[in-house]
């Protein structure tokens, strides 16, 4: 894993201190995990409403999914605390993937109500 060409160690001490600061407290992590668990419960519950919500059911599920996704990325993956570059690189991938594949499905008329 540590395959850097040129490890430069002149700031080892500083780096060590910085590492302690970075990230949230364990308490925060536990709270986030609890929140995620609750969200998952909501999701499962929503899926059991037997389409009582009509077309909004999918929308609710996708929203909950997005919230969970962002929570894990921001807190567990430290994007909230890390440099913006990491966030940009990762979300660039997520956005490209979403746009491209949604576009592809659109050419199959996937989003039309009569698909299949």
């Amino acid at each position, binding site marked *: 894993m540590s395959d850097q*060409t040129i490890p430069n160690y002149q700031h080892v001490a500083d780096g060590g201190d910085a590492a302690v600061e970075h990230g949230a407290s364990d308490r925060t992590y536990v709270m986030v995990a609890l929140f995620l668990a609750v969200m998952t419960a909501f999701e499962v519950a929503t899926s059991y409403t037997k389409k009582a919500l009509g077309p909004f059911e999918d929308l609710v599920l996708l929203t909950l999914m997005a919230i969970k996704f962002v929570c894990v990325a921001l807190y567990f993956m430290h994007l909230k605390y890390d440099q913006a*570059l990491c966030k940009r690189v990762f979300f660039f991938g997520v956005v490209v993937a979403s746009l491209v594949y949604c576009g592809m499905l659109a050419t*199959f008329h996937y989003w039309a109500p009569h698909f299949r």
Partner: protein
Amino acid sequence: MAIVEAPRPLVIPEPVLPASGPMGVFKRPTKTTGWRSWATTIDHKKIGKMYGFMSIVFFIIGGCEALLIRTQLATPNGTLLSAQVYNEMFTMHGTTMIFLVVMPLGVAFMNYFVPLQIGARDVAFPRLNAFGFWTFLAGGIILNSSWILGGAPDNGWYNYAPNSLVTFAPTHGIDFWTVGLLTTGIASLVTAINMITTIINMRAPGMTWFKVPVFTWMSLVGQFMLLFAIPVLTAAQFMLLFDRRFGANYFEVSQGADPLLWQHLFWIFGHPEVYIMIMPAFGLTSDIIPVFSRKPLFGYKVMVISGIAIGFLGWGVWAHHMFTSGMGPVSNAAFAVGSMTIAIPTGVKIFNWMGTMWRGQIRFTTAMLFAVGMFTMFMLGGVSGITHAISPADTQQHDTYYVVAHFHYVLFGGAALVFFGAFYYWWPKIFGHMLNENLGKWNFWLMMAGFNLTFGPQHILGLQGMPRRVYTYLPGYGWELWNMVSTIGSYILAFSVLIFIINVVYSRRKAHAAGQYTCDPDPWDGRTLEWITTSPPPEFDFWEIPDVRDLDEAWHRKYAEDENGRVVRVAKIEDVMDKPTGVIPHMPSPSYWPLVAAFGMLFIGYGIIFSLALCAVGGFLLFVSLVAWGIEPSTEPGVHPVEPLTPDSGESGVAHEIHEVGANV
């Protein structure tokens, strides 16, 4: 060719620590010469040379395939090749040229020059770099071994389903294609990660984003596109592989599958792929033209931004390869308009190159000729590209020789021409001697003539209704003349490549006879950082990481404006170049494991095709080597391929910095 070692001056040994044997089995490799040094090297320059060498080998293979294709088509009812062999020929020609020539040639230049241009000593992950190269080679071997192991793939380079399924392609050909490209795909992916990390993270102090040389910039854009495109191809390949080997139903129409899924996935990869191939060429042209015009690049920022814009737009236009597939008018209209917009940033680039030449002091060296040839030929390809974006017109052009002409103007006229230019431009930096300019000019003009004779007439053929991928045609369609011209052109083209090879051998012999292993660090009056280090550069690239203040740092070290605003030379390159400091930078040590891991990939690849037992062998090799790789430190204390040199021996401090000069090509 013998490997040349100059006598080394007094060596001051470092304190030697015991070399730890990784896994306790092998000693860490230490050779700096001989084949072992190439097999275990993790030096970005050596890996770059190997990429370049292999690309040229594959270029010759793919070129021979092209000659056979053209010979078959020279006259109607050609009988040189059977239909089956012809189908295999064009499939392998396309696949080879794209995946084993243009892409790796770009990577070759990136590997060698990106670290030099950004003032770094190596790439971010040197062993991953070596792994990338060996895996690429494994993929190339898997693909090309199909010729002797039961038939090559025969369904074209985009391999549309369902003609690629076992029912319609019962031999192993398509499996070789799938597995070979999955393997090169892994190589491309790790290389992309490596290059992006290198460019983002290892720029010399002071090199802000708008001081990065254009070649590096365009490499970054291209590698980002590759990063996102390769997984799409990988996914599609896995689906096809699962269909063929394990009975999945991704493209099985009788099970309700839709063959357009393959087309979409393939072109979501395939269209960015086009830009992946052309991006390094854009960068090279943008680097070469200013040097030989003695002017900065016209509109540097616009050039960079238009490159990025092409990178973005390139993701939204893939379905223009599918205008005839019956997607419906709405999709066609959307993708037609989307595709046209790419013409805008591309046109900007062409005009900016012209703007760079405008009021310059142009020296037509071979490199410059190739660069100018590149953008004019690429422009022609771009113009025919606009005619494809007009989807109703594309229904008359799609899958005809007009398209063949178009993409050869873009890929040969665009990418390949400037790659040849780059050879002439960077040869002294890489090998310490020039390529012969007279032969170079013959090379260029014959290549231009051959190229235009080969592909120019194909525009006419296509518009006159000749489909592509036909192994023969009947007389009476009016195609005889232009096919013959095209075939003659292809032989001229092949001859020009031969001249290049003769030039390489001749120039090398000449330099060897003259005992010339190093040359002027800056033979062209260059502008970017690679010209401030010696030719060839030391293993660690720079004694001292340069401090960058300007775009075109090397130029600004040599020239300044006087009080009247005129540009005057203020220093010679000898005064401003990188000089030995006497302190040898520690470089990462060579390693066996990338090579062993790639061997694992090779076995796994053949295993998927032939027997799962081979997979187990390959998997074991891969696992062992990855674990060993993880355990061994990147820099082994006491095991160091670069023997320390004394800075004050010899006048310039460069005369003795010769390792195996030119042992590669």
